[in-house]
């Protein structure tokens, strides 16, 4: 039937695939490049000859290098990670766990896999190749200049781990609260045809369009002096909101609400209203119908929306840099700080290593959830 009729002529397919390959190159190259830079000594990293940056002669001369064997092992480990993350894990979680347990499955599975791959790449591969290199002759000599010292500097000496924890805390908080508040509102808005609902959506849309710097700068004095103006309400223990992660979570949730409710509303609209009416006939209240009947079929939508909340919270710079102090700073402002202060070139490469480090979890996330995103969007979100 249609398969043959839709078959494309060869030239068209070749052109199409060639352009696709070009796009992939454009999409990946800048990111690939900072990754390469982060493994080199400063002299190599900023060399204007591209080949020197890739091969890293100066790095090699300083005794940091990889043998052919190590490269192969490394590539193998990367391939295995990708395979596990994009195929095995999602299949396992979807196949053998149900409902609420799936959440745990995703979280624990991704964490184990993430830690495992870091250990394999930075621990196991160098260890194995160190043992085997002497026996392999030409295969065992270093050919590619490569050093992991900048990563050690970032994570061990600079205490980047604390920033990582802060980022996790804030991101987790924003995603959970944003989704709980947002699903309620999205459902309410989808099931109400009232004028009020319409105007709330329009106002939300305008809020979505606001320049953030305007709002955020207004928060700073209020947050710093909060113990004074909260004192009449909360008495002695009124907190100073500045520098408190929960305050930043609240701000980010609010900023993210307009997008979240629009998105979830369109997901809910695709769930036939008959479903909750049936439940109501059975004697459920609106809220029970929402929880027992609607939510179970909403997971794809919730996961997709959750990913967008995750990106917003994880990548935020404006709010976190202004409202958090150094003790609970997240990764993005910490990295911006590394770049902006008076730096040496070594510091710059260290900051690049930090930048690559914060991109890694995002990579991983997309690998695991990629199908979810596409199927979630296909399932009928974003109707406009």
């Amino acid at each position, binding site marked *: 039937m*249609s398969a043959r*009729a*839709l078959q494309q002529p060869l030239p*068209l397919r070749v052109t*199409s*695939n060639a352009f*696709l390959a070009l*796009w992939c190159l*454009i*999409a990946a190259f*800048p*990111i690939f*490049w900072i990754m390469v*830079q982060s493994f080199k000594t400063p002299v190599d990293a900023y060399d*204007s*000859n*591209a080949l020197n940056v890739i091969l890293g002669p100066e790095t090699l001369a300083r005794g940091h290098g990889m043998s052919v064997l190590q490269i192969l092992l490394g590539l193998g480990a990367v391939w295995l990670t990708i395979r596990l993350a994009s195929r095995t894990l999602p299949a396992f979680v979807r196949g053998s766990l149900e409902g609420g347990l799936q959440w745990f499955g995703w979280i624990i599975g991704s964490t184990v896999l993430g830690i495992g791959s870091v250990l394999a790449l930075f621990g196991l591969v160098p260890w194995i190749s160190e043992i085997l290199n002497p026996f392999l002759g030409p295969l065992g000599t270093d050919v590619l200049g490569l050093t992991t010292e900048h990563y050690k500097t970032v994570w061990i000496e600079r205490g980047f781990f604390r920033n990582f924890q802060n980022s996790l805390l804030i991101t987790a908080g924003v995603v959970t609260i944003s989704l709980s*508040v*947002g699903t*309620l509102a999205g459902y*309410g*808005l989808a*099931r*109400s045809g009232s004028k009020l*609902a319409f105007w709330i*959506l*329009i106002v*939300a*849309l*305008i809020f979505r*369009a*606001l*320049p953030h*710097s*305007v*709002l955020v*700068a*207004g928060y700073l004095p209020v947050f710093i002096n909060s113990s004074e103006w909260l004192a009449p309400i909360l008495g002695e223990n009124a907190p100073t909101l500045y520098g408190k992660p929960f305050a930043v979570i*609240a*701000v980010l949730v*609010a900023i993210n*609400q307009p997008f979240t409710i629009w998105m979830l509303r369109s997901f809910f609209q695709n769930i036939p209203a008959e479903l909750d009416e049936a439940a109501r006939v059975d004697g459920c209240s*609106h*809220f029970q119908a929402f929880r027992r009947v609607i939510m179970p079929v909403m997971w794809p939508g919730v996961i997709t929306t959750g990913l967008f909340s995750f990106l917003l919270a*994880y990548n935020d*710079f404006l709010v976190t840099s202004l409202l958090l102090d150094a003790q609970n700073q997240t990764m*993005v402002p910490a*990295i*911006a700080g590394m770049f902006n202060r008076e730096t040496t070139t070594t510091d710059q490469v260290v900051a690049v290593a930090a930048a690559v480090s*914060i*991109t890694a979890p*995002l990579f991983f996330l*997309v690998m695991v959830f*990629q199908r979810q995103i*596409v199927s979630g*969007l*296909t399932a009928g*979100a*974003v109707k*406009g």
Partner: protein
Amino acid sequence: MKFKTFAAFIGPSVFMMLLFIAFPLVSVFQQSFYITQPIYELVDVETCTPGFLTQTCVTETQSMPTLDEHGEIITQTEFVGLQSYRNVLELGRAWEALSAGSWTAFQSIDFWKALRFTLSFTLITLPLVICAGLGIAVMINNATKAVRGPVIFISLLPFIITPVIGALSINWLFRGDGILTAALEWYLQRDIAMFAQAWTIEILMMFYRVWHVAPFAAIVFYAGLQTVNQDSLESAIIDGASRWQRLKYIIIPHLMPLIVFISMIHLMDSYRVFEEIVGFSSQGHVISLQWLTYDFLVPDQAGNRSISRASASAMLTMIGIALLLVPLLRRTWRDHHGGH
């Protein structure tokens, strides 16, 4: 749904938006009509600062703010009407420049310079994002099933990467003798400085924005392509419609709501362009409206900030966004009333 139930469902969300968005917005609106300033008095102050070996002391007459008995600065707030708006718009100078027919003079006034760039940035990247997104989506859809997964993964990278870092990574490729500039120089056999003139920086910024946003458009369109009605496609083929006609008459109309959705998001996001200005440090050549607001807002080294002008410029930015969104909002209005 009863109003009470409705209110219970949307309550928390609306409360958060009121508290953290609407309330600050109202205060910004109000501040744009007032000026608050400390009351200064002239004092002779002797200041001693270190030299390399010995101190230098100078006595100067300085303006110091007066403090009340609690040690707080006394301020006075004054209603100034539209004065702050006039200060931002500089209509007099703008009119003078225009009537003298001098575009350069007109473009040296901050607000108009920022407006020019913001508008051209928004309106040029919009079609690029839509076309690139659509193209990538169609190409992914054409590709064999086996490569789709990896290709989608790679395509999503520019979208998920932290914007600050994405902008820097592109910046490094071109700045000074960055490797892509070096490659271009080698290819064209001439010296190139991408950051030395306004138009090249603008191109870089637009390229970055399209690179960053097109993947999102592509993935949304790709999702949309999966739900194209196969029957109508088949009957179109039977009717002898060409590939192009099928794209034009079946696929694009099917994707129309998504195109509107992407356009709306993109208009809002690119009208408040800001990260690019900072990431490419283009202030010397081009500025945007949100950057202008930000620049009024951040205190200089002596702690002065222009809150009133910042508020006025923020309100002007908002009016601009609202105007741009009107056509799209009318569509939403019709949809809402046409039932779901």
